[in-house]
């Protein structure tokens, strides 16, 4: 059955969240902020002028931000959630990572022979908020692409290791599904390259050349920067891409920005607890030394 071409836009995979704007992490402001580690608080600009909280917390701990829907927000519930998250963080350390960095996750699994399972892969998405926050790891094993979604605060997770800490040009790398497999294959015995403290998190500016058509979804419509392709199949598709391109007036829509983001005063409240928690852990580490 040949449907008219106007129905082709709906073909979007369930995990994929269309993100038409540029990556926040790869923006110039983010690069300036993420240049130094948390410890050198003096060099990092504060979140709000006059506060102790560094601005880099916005990118390092995005899971502490609540859902920016005004109707669904409740301050007490957010507070209780945060306390739960800190409790879990006191037991298991959740390291700093970004979409694009390579991770290894060991979980306790009742069906595995040793009751543990380990998975290595590139983080292609980091989403959710508070206790619901998750990440998706991707790897190609024996020519088969595997993706696993982990809840960050799931108590069955034993350990999260960062094998390679870096950022990419995009916040979502779902287009690796249509890329050649060498871009998302990582050996399970991959050695960790340690990231020295105080250095900037490197921005990996590799541009992936995608496979020829057909693709899983139409990646070219959403303004990703991290891939190229040879040609588009027909002239109609190109015309449609123009229609779906981000509108110019959206940049000046202040109310839209306000609805999507959480105001800075509220962010300050959310990051206060983790700041206290971090100070405590740093002191502990110093004592051990």
């Amino acid at each position, binding site marked *: 059955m040949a449907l008219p071409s106007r129905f082709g836009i709906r073909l979007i995979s369930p995990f994929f969240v269309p993100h038409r704007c540029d990556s926040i992490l790869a923006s110039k402001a983010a690069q300036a902020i993420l240049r130094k580690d948390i410890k050198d608080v003096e060099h990092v600009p504060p979140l709000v002028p006059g506060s102790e909280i560094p601005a880099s917390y916005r990118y390092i701990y995005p899971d502490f931000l609540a859902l920016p829907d005004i109707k669904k927000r409740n301050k007490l519930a957010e507070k209780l959630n945060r306390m739960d998250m800190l409790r879990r963080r006191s*037991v298991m350390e959740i390291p700093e990572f970004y979409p694009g960095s390579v991770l290894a996750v060991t979980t306790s*699994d009742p069906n595995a022979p040793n009751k543990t399972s380990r998975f290595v892969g590139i983080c292609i998405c980091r989403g959710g908020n508070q206790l619901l926050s998750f990440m998706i790891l991707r790897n190609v094993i024996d020519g088969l692409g595997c993706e696993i979604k982990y809840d960050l605060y799931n108590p069955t997770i034993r350990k999260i290791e960062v094998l390679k800490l870096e950022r990419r040009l995009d916040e979502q790398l779902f287009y690796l599904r249509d890329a050649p497999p060498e871009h998302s294959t990582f050996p399970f015995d991959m050695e960790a390259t340690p990231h020295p403290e105080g250095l900037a998190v490197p921005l990996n500016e590799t541009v992936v050349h995608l496979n020829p058509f057909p693709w899983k979804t139409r990646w070219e419509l959403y303004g990703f920067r991290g891939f190229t392709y040879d040609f588009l199949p027909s002239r109609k598709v190109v015309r449609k891409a123009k229609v779906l391109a981000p509108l110019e007036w959206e940049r000046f829509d202040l109310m839209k920005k306000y609805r999507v983001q959480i105001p800075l005063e509220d962010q300050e409240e959310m990051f206060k607890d983790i700041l206290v928690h971090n100070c405590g852990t740093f002191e502990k580490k110093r004592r051990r030394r």
Partner: protein
Amino acid sequence: MAQALRALCGAFGSSCRIGNSLGAKLPGPVRTESAISFSGSFVNVDFVRHGGKSHSHRRQVKINPYHILPEIPAVEKTQERLTEENAQFLQQVNADNVSPLKAPPPERKPFTYWTKRTGLICKKIGVIPQWLTNGRRIRCSVVQVIDNHVVSSSAPEEFAKQYNASRYKPKVRNVGCMVVGAESIDPTNLTDDYVKLFEPAGLQPKRKLSKFIVTPDALVQPGTALRATHFRTGDYVDVGAKTIDHGFQGVMKRWKFKGGPATHGATKFHRRPGSIGHGAHNSKVKKGKKMPGFMGGKYQMQRCLQIMRMNRTHDVMYIRGTFPGATNSWCYVFDTVARSKRPLKNPPPMPTHYPEDDVTPHSEETFVPLLFQLDKPTIEFEITEDDLKKVRTGAKTAQKSPSKAPPKAGAKVAGKS
């Protein structure tokens, strides 16, 4: 409708004025201080547990149940603002207030099969994930008990008088009722009549009021505070709330019909229900046919939900599962009606939990043993003997199969290819 409203007002004393226009519009703020008598009865009939009509999908015409409107109109607010001296005077009056709690409490009675305790007025704060000790993720809806106090309680005899002419009469033979209020508010912005309702209980006026039907052994003194400890962790509760109001909706959203085709010459038939009755025998529309109409905005109950966790400082309960209603909306929590889940062997505090009864100092948070506490070490599964047996047998078969077991025909084909 006029009859219903009259019957409703008859419960609170005959002298209540309604006005001539009895349509969808009610008369404005009726401020008749002398005309209304407050003889222990209560005004609001917002919710009655087992009352209510059968399932009808028509939206009820919105009638404000208060014949006394709580808030002063905005124009009058400015006129009635207090001076400092008056405010001080009011504070003194509040200090000298005679609370009914100074009288000795009534005799306590045990929890039986037939007792029906009060419910609580709560606010649904959110829905969050929690984990069990076996690693399974569950959904818990978080509920806060906001400042609940008993405003009035009436014995079965009084309650029968209130509903003498109404449809509740046969049901309430040996049942009393209690009015509970939640979330106290500033009395300076309210009408005198509304504030007077709370005087006999010695309380601040409340934003939300509702009536609970209880058995006479579970009546609580007016003025007492109801907290989340009215229930315990592990108890099963029923939760009632209003579903999200979607307004008038078509048949695809309301009943999940499939609609019509998008193409192939379909004109004006994309979201329609199709035929609703035809043929020689059924040449009419059957009763209860699914049609477009008002969706949501209805009171519904969800039964048999377990309380997994409780925070005493904030009066917050974590209830396993979900129930209707959006976040930040009101809901009512009761003991379950389900017989198998009623805690007869381990009875709950009767008529409610008093903080004086605590023998041992209570912890801030209580958990069900099945629920994982996030500050405990990570879940690790032990290797049992059965697992070891499986490994051994698996190894044996793996060794034997190439030598002893003859290869099958299918295996050969697979090997060739």
